[in-house]
């Protein structure tokens, strides 16, 4: 049990932190300057707060009121600093024993041999700190702190000065420590990845204040903590068990699925926490709403929610003339045979094939021509033996005839025709139902009708098709600063770019814009627009984040369900997804690029699904080689606008979410999944093309 209540002013900075936490590992989290180190220094006795008290388990270490201030050497608080701070004049062995020698034997419960083994220090024992690598130094520092027989271990950004592989290595050691030494740890970090992996309870500091205390699952990912946690740091957590490794990927099983991620981490069988990467297979179960805000979801979670809730709309009949591009709601079966009768496939002479046996250029056979058959004007009556009927392509074959000799193998005389080609029965005849039989399936349900499909339907005599209703999309633009293009505007106002862009995107995905409303920031009007019937999908542009005028998230939560608010991606992290009645609501960021990205990722998918279309990206794809590196971060999906030069692809200047021109200059975009840190030069990547 760690009970901290301290108050201290450093010039303008006011540190006032009060929390109590009981856990094997308490994560003290916050950005730099949040006051984390001041808190641990106070716990260690290095700094003396002006007011308050500090208690560990049942021992009062500091109490300003009763003037209790236990000296640091008597607090038995092990402190691991950011840079190891090994004593340079002592070798590793002497460093390790420095603190141990100072404790009375009765207090020694952590044995050097154990720690040396646990931290893999044996090969280092006789070396001087100056010859150790950063990771080795940090391991020695941890061992030194432990051998001082502490009641609690404070670790202040122990990984901050290490490179990524060393970080991972030390994290492994710290995990073993947590599980084997069983000493409470206060772990200070600005990295969600580290906190998520190690801590059970998290204390979030911001500006010298404690803004949240709770289990790691409940705190990491809270959108309202974004200013304290940092946009790029938020994530969602999955508890999983390592099931397998291959050379690159580690598989982890959790309730509801399995994930695979980079292989730097734990041994098989170890249960640990995993920041869930983007994957298409399963969704993380569980309620993501908390405290009126939603967790910052992984992209995959958001997509899974959409796939569950974006139900296909009902059918509607549509005249064939308007059917192209629509999605068939039911399979179409042929109401008749095509062709409807046996017909000639060539211009020539219809006759009995058997009677042409032996006919050749040198041995033409003569047939009496008894008449002719034209398309729409059949030969009446049966064909007598030894005779032929002159026939045109598409004309019905007379009864008795079973083959057609093409005209070029026939020499017409006065009444007879000389045939110079032997044809087997059936030659050049299109039999009834040969193309399509009555009742045969012609087009499947869900088929997006192409021009030739519509032609086929027409050929079957079908005048109207039953198609999936087009999703009715309501575009709601919020923000007092937004003015329609063409109107006069004050300098501080901006033109509404998003709704014009959204109209085009909605049309692309098969939706129809039901209405388009420019509403300012009036919550009542926004509420009315959200709850009015008549829309299948509602797109709200602007006001989706956590600003004071951002009403939409609250209004959606009040009127229905705000399932997802905040997605771990860039740009457009504050996107929100929910539903009111039957309508799906998408809160799109006001910044045009974020808006485009959030639409493409989420809203467009929902519109396509509701309209019966394929959920996948509608964009054409191509492969290209990365010519300038594309930077992302683990735990975040990046929508990176790129330009294609020849067969190469390079990212455009990123950053500004409101720079719409970047999407105009871009040829397409590359998606960097959340388990990737980006793509290096030379990587072959898929580019989605803007068209």
């Amino acid at each position, binding site marked *: 049990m760690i009970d901290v209540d301290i108050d201290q002013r450093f010039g303008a900075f006011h540190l006032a932190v009060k929390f109590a936490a009981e856990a094997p590992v308490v994560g003290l989290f916050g950005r730099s300057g949040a006051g984390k180190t001041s808190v641990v220094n106070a716990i260690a006795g290095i700094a003396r707060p002006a007011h308050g008290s500090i208690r560990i388990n049942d021992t009062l270490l500091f109490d300003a009121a009763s003037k209790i201030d236990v000296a640091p*050497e008597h607090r038995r608080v*092990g402190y691991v600093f950011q840079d190891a701070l090994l004593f*340079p*004049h002592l070798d590793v062995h002497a460093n390790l024993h420095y603190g141990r020698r100072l*404790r009375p034997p009765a207090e020694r419960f952590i044995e050097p041999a154990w720690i040396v083994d646990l931290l893999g220090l044996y090969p280092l024992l006789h070396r*001087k700190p100056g010859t150790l690598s950063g990771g080795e130094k940090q391991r020695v520092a941890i061992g030194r*702190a432990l051998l*001082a027989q502490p009641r609690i271990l404070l670790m202040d950004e122990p990984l901050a000065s290490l490179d990524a592989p060393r970080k991972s290595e030390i994290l492994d050691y710290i995990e073993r420590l947590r599980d084997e030494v069983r000493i409470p740890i206060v772990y200070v970090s600005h990295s969600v990845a580290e906190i998520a992996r190690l801590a059970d309870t998290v204390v979030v500091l911001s500006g010298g204040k404690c803004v949240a205390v709770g289990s790691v699952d409940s705190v990491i990912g809270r959108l309202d903590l974004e200013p304290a946690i940092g946009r790029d740091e938020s994530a969602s957590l999955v508890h999983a068990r390592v099931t397998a490794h291959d050379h690159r990927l580690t598989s982890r099983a959790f309730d509801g699925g399995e994930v695979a991620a980079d292989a730097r981490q734990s041994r098989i069988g170890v249960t640990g926490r995993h920041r869930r990467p983007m994957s298409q297979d399963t969704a993380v179960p569980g309620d993501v709403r908390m405290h009126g805000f939603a967790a910052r979801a992984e992209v995959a979670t958001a997509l899974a929610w959409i796939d569950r809730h974006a139900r296909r709309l009902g059918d509607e009949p549509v005249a064939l003339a308007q059917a192209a591009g629509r999605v068939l709601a039911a399979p179409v079966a042929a109401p008749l045979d095509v062709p409807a009768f046996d017909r000639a496939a060539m211009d020539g002479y219809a006759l009995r094939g058997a009677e042409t046996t032996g006919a050749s250029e040198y041995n033409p056979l003569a047939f009496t021509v008894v008449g002719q058959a034209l398309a729409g004007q059949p030969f009446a009556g049966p064909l007598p033996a030894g005779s032929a009927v002159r026939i045109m392509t598409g004309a019905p074959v007379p009864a008795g005839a079973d083959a057609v000799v093409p005209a070029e193998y026939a020499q017409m005389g006065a009444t007879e025709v000389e045939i110079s080609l032997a044809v087997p029965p059936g030659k050049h005849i299109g039999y009834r139902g040969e193309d399509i039989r009555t009742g045969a399936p012609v087009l499947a349900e869900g088929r997006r009708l192409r021009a030739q499909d519509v032609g086929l339907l027409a050929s079957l005599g079908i005048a109207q098709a039953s198609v999936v209703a087009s999703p009715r999309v309501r575009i709601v633009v919020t923000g007092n600063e937004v003015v329609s293009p063409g109107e006069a505007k004050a300098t501080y106002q901006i033109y509404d770019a998003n709704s014009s862009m959204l109209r085009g995107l909605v049309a692309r995905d098969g939706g129809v814009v039901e209405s388009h409303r420019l509403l300012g920031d009036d919550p009542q009007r926004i509420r009315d627009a959200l709850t009015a019937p008549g829309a299948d999908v509602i797109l709200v542009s602007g006001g989706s984040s956590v600003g004071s005028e951002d009403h939409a998230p609250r209004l959606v939560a009040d009127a229905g369900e705000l399932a997802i608010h905040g997605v771990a991606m860039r740009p457009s992290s504050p996107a929100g997804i929910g539903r009111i009645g039957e309508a799906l609501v998408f809160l799109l960021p006001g910044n045009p690029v974020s808006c485009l990205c959030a639409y493409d990722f989420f809203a467009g998918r929902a519109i396509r699904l509701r309209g019966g279309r394929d959920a996948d990206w509608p964009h054409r794809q191509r492969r290209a080689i990365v010519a300038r590196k594309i930077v992302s971060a683990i735990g975040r999906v990046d929508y990176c606008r790129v330009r294609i030069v020849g067969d190469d692809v390079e990212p455009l200047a990123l950053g500004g979410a409101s720079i719409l021109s970047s999407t105009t200059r871009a040829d397409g975009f590359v998606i960097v999944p959340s388990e990737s840190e980006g793509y290096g030069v030379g990587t072959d990547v898929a580019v989605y093309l803007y068209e």
Partner: protein
Amino acid sequence: MLGLGAHEFGIIGLSLRVALVSMICSLPLAILAAYALARLDFPGKTLVDAIIHLPLVLPPVVVGFALLLLLGKHGPIGSVLDDWFGIVFAFRWTGAALASAVMGFPLMVRAVRLSITAIDRRLEVAARTLGGSRSWVFFSITLPLALPGIIAGALLSFARGLGEFGATITFVSNIPGETETLPLAIYAYTQVPSGDGPALRLSIVAVVLSIVALAASEWLTRRSQRLHVDDRR
């Protein structure tokens, strides 16, 4: 060897003794002063700093005169020491050592202070959290890490002591066999006819001693610095 007689050897021995004693006796005080100036905050720190550095800028004769006034037989401190402890500095070799110590003190403090300032304070903090009391941390961490500076300071003070003239001659006068150190003896030889030969000989001795002191300082400093890195290649 250089034709030095017993008299000259006596002078050299006395000089070495005065310089060595002054160095050894002032060293603990200098380390404490340096630590206090480098690490502690206390009222009057600037004044203490100034007083320690005063001998560096004052004419040595003024320092000697001040010592004579304070520590002479009838001076306020000297009389107390004489009456209560029977300790007399005036006109004794111990007085010469004291004068050397006072003159060399700022040099010593400066060197030690610089090396203490250069030590990462957080190493001391780390040692405290590991269970070391303030004094144990000082002896086990601060002192070993400051060793190069301490050696350099000690040698500077020793060399200063060998060359001390003004304060010594003012405070304890030039008494052959008691307070006549090398510089004083050289000065005395130059004041008498046919004293140039002995003066030159003693000067050469002074040069040699200085060079040896410098070399020793360099060697010790290097050796102590090697403590900080592994000597395995």
